[in-house]
């Protein structure tokens, strides 16, 4: 609890037009990581919604965390597109507001000026989604089920690192403290008294650090491969393996034993296919979310899922957002389409599922000589679900950035580091 709360979010600087929101981000993450039945999302209006399933505790709520690896450039995902400093420092890669592209149906930022329950939107005119993100904009956002927590990062008092690996470690531990070695999501799981079955899954061949710890959590690269294969008699082989991997022992032994105990729960779960007209693309995140929806429906005890979404380290060649072939726009489109397909697929069940996205840091507000951006501090997070109050939250606005081009200044920090 204390460890988690140390990882509050801080802000980069935006123009002073950004107004203060409500609930502190410290509290947001603290509650996300602290367990209990409630997971809390925030909105720009300061509302908070605890969502749980009082009527059906066996079903349980599911927290789905997507880690945007590489340092997502939040300023080109949720762009402060009318901000003069932003416009000046990103001459070739900035997202443009609609008034700059009259008559162009495709290319301008997608205005975050209303979002379902939030009307009139308090930050109207400030932010626009990257034009690649039409699916999220037309679906979850306009339904009021998508919240943006902007300028989210670690306070410099905790860690000012711009290292991918240090920052990812800190996020996943929920602390910059070296003696915190388990993951914040595993601590969240520890708080449940009724965990059983496949309570947590990390999508991939290895388990994400945020899921490591004492509560059982399972790495799974796909449903179909999650089983013991290859022996003439797999059942007998499993019996022999149980002898070799007693549940009391070191990490190797306990993970082996845990794994042997749950494979039968996963094998043969139904695959009804995507529902409600949802269409998943073939990239890793989309396919991971498709299987996540399938596992949620199969009721195997799932409480938490982590998926990695790589490819955000945009040091070069981001391209113009108006260019439908540009790399960064396409990256945002893929991300947007994957989340939207999941939201559509689960439909009404999204009242028991919350998706939270996180990235290790944001990027410099200035573009570099290679048409990209370098490592910065804070970025944008998304929270999606039917019990999320849509909107954009930026709780405080730091001072305007001081950028001295051609010097060593690192312009996106608000703390001068």
């Amino acid at each position: 609890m204390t460890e988690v709360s140390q990882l509050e979010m801080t802000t980069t600087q935006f123009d002073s037009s950004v107004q203060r929101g409500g609930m502190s981000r410290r509290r947001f993450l603290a509650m996300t990581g602290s367990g209990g039945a409630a997971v809390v999302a925030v909105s720009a209006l300061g509302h908070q919604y605890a969502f749980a399933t009082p009527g059906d505790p066996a079903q349980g709520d599911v927290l789905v965390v997507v880690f945007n690896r590489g340092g997502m450039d939040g300023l080109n995902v949720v762009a402060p597109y009318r901000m003069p400093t932003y416009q000046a420092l990103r001459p070739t890669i900035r997202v443009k507001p609609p008034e700059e592209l009259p008559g162009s149906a495709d290319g301008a930022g997608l205005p975050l000026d209303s979002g379902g329950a939030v009307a009139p939107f308090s930050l109207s005119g400030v932010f626009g989604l990257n034009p690649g993100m039409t699916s999220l904009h037309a679906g979850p956002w306009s339904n009021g089920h998508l919240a943006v927590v902007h300028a989210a990062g670690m306070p410099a008092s905790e860690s000012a690192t711009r290292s991918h690996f240090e920052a990812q470690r800190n996020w996943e531990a929920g602390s910059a403290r070296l003696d915190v070695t388990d993951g914040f999501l595993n601590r969240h799981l520890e708080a449940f008294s009724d965990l059983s079955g496949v309570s947590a899954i990390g999508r991939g061949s290895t388990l994400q650090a945020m899921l490591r710890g004492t509560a059982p959590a399972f790495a799974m690269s796909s449903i179909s491969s999650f089983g013991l294969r290859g022996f003439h008699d797999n059942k007998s082989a499993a019996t022999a393996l149980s002898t070799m991997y007693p549940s009391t022992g070191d990490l190797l032994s306990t993970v082996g034993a845990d794994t042997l105990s749950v494979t039968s729960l996963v094998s043969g779960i139904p695959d009804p296919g995507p529902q409600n007209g949802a269409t998943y693309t073939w990239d890793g995140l989309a396919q991971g979310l498709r299987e996540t929806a399938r596992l949620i429906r199969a009721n195997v005890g799932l409480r938490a899922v982590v998926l990695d979404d790589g490819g955000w380290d945009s040091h070069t060649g981001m391209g113009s957002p108006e260019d439908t072939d540009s790399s960064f726009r396409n990256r945002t489109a893929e991300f947007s389409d994957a989340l939207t397909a999941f939201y559509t697929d689960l439909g009404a069940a999204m009242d028991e599922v919350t998706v939270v996205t996180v990235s290790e840091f944001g990027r410099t507000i200035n573009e570099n000589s290679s048409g990209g951006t370098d490592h910065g501090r804070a970025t944008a997070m998304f929270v999606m679900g039917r019990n999320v109050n849509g909107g954009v939250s930026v709780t405080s606005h730091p001072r305007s950035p001081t950028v001295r081009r051609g010097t060593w200044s690192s312009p996106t920090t608000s703390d001068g580091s």
Partner: protein
Amino acid sequence: MAGIGATAALTAACAPPPVRGSQGGQEDQVPNAPPPTPQPGTSLEAAQHLARRATFGATHDDVQRIESMGAAAWLDQQLSRSGLASAENLLGGYVTLTNTNEQNYHVKDEGESDRIVEELDHATLLRAVYSEQQLYEVMCDFWTNHFNIWRFADWLVHLKTRDNETVIRKHALGKFSDLLMASAKSPAMLVYLDNYQSSGTPGEQVNENYGRELLELHTLGIVDGAQAYSEADVVGVAKVLSGWGISWDAGSMHDFQFHHWHHSREAVSILGEHGRALHVRTGVTTTSTGWPTASPLIRFLAHHKSTARYLATKLVRRFVSDTPPASLVQRLASIYLANDTAIAPMLRELFLSKEFGASANQKVKRPVDWMFSALRATGAVIPTDARGKAAKDLRSALGALGQPLNERTSPDGWPDVAAYWVGSDGMLKRWGVRRLPCPFHRQRSGEGVGEPGSSPATTASASNAALVTWLGTNRFGLSMSSAEAAAICTAVGAAPSGAATQIASETKKLQGCVGLLLAHPGFHRR
């Protein structure tokens, strides 16, 4: 397959089979076992421990050699590589290994980039499994990870091979300062971390990517959250290195080239504010020079005490413990600095240290370690055709296990701690590897990988359980309980007390036993 050796048979004719090690409790069941010969030098346990860590898989022969030579002499031979056969003779026809960047560019241009990928990967595997220069190969892997380059980043796939051959393999046991300089001028690195398109001329922001990773991952490092450098240092280093790029000229295409028109001419000081070693470069005024000013920076970084500590920490993590003992790290760092950044003296101290001696079986194998050690333990005969089915199968098996060769996407290289690798998916894939196209699976007219155990040496007077225990102990270095041996027998449908000829005569049963022995937790530790 000439040159690999003909010892495919797992249980074959190394008779009489001595029971090695004190474990197992089955010694009296194995006929004709001679009493173990006591060695004056290195004990069996110490030899096994050293072989597990300093090779890609301890074979029976490795352990015997260390026992008879003594650990120090064996290490010295490994470090000097004198008299030890390489595996280069297996790589005939691998033209992309020796091609220039330009030649490999043309290979790629002709739609043959798969050939570049496959030759590099199969060369990596054959060298790791068959070279007698095992510690050298292990260190090549270490530096490949330290200077990791994802070959499918951007368009650099044809550049990775030269980095492998002339940066990593050339300097793997040499001086780190030479290795670092070679890496800094490596076209693959300059493209991977974007330095080739960085410009530090007035009005432009340098690309910080390579400068940052040079400090964080290649030299000064971050150890236990502590780092010696600041953000200003990252930008300063990026400025000094701006203009280090690649050639676009025919004849030297994609080789290193300095572009003075992209080079920042600002004065730069590195690490000065920390009161430690300071590197100062005054402003560069000429228009055509400038690139030599980066070389002193590279040497400065190589000789920095933070670099010494960081490299020592990583070596100790690789070879001793997931939680490196500070005492050993400190000694290695001092040795590194006292020997002008030479790598071999650090390794010698490490493997002969008491900290190393006390760390047996505390490391968990990464998938590559596990796969290579399985190939070595079973004496697998691997076809050398880099583009054949066996090579492709092995590549895809490593991918399924979670550690595809040369395909770590991020510049930090594969982690080397148990917490990262021990997970359900990895366990299931390792256990079920027989289903993957791999050596324990099938043999099909020379296309598959050699089958172990085609000619088992056993007698009717030994039991199935004794045979399994003998295999586990002698071929896989395991310490097995009788309950485990019995469980394995039962799993393959053989009575533990039945005659060993039952398992030995049925390939399917023997393969099942080998599969379960490879799944034994002891074979996942090193």
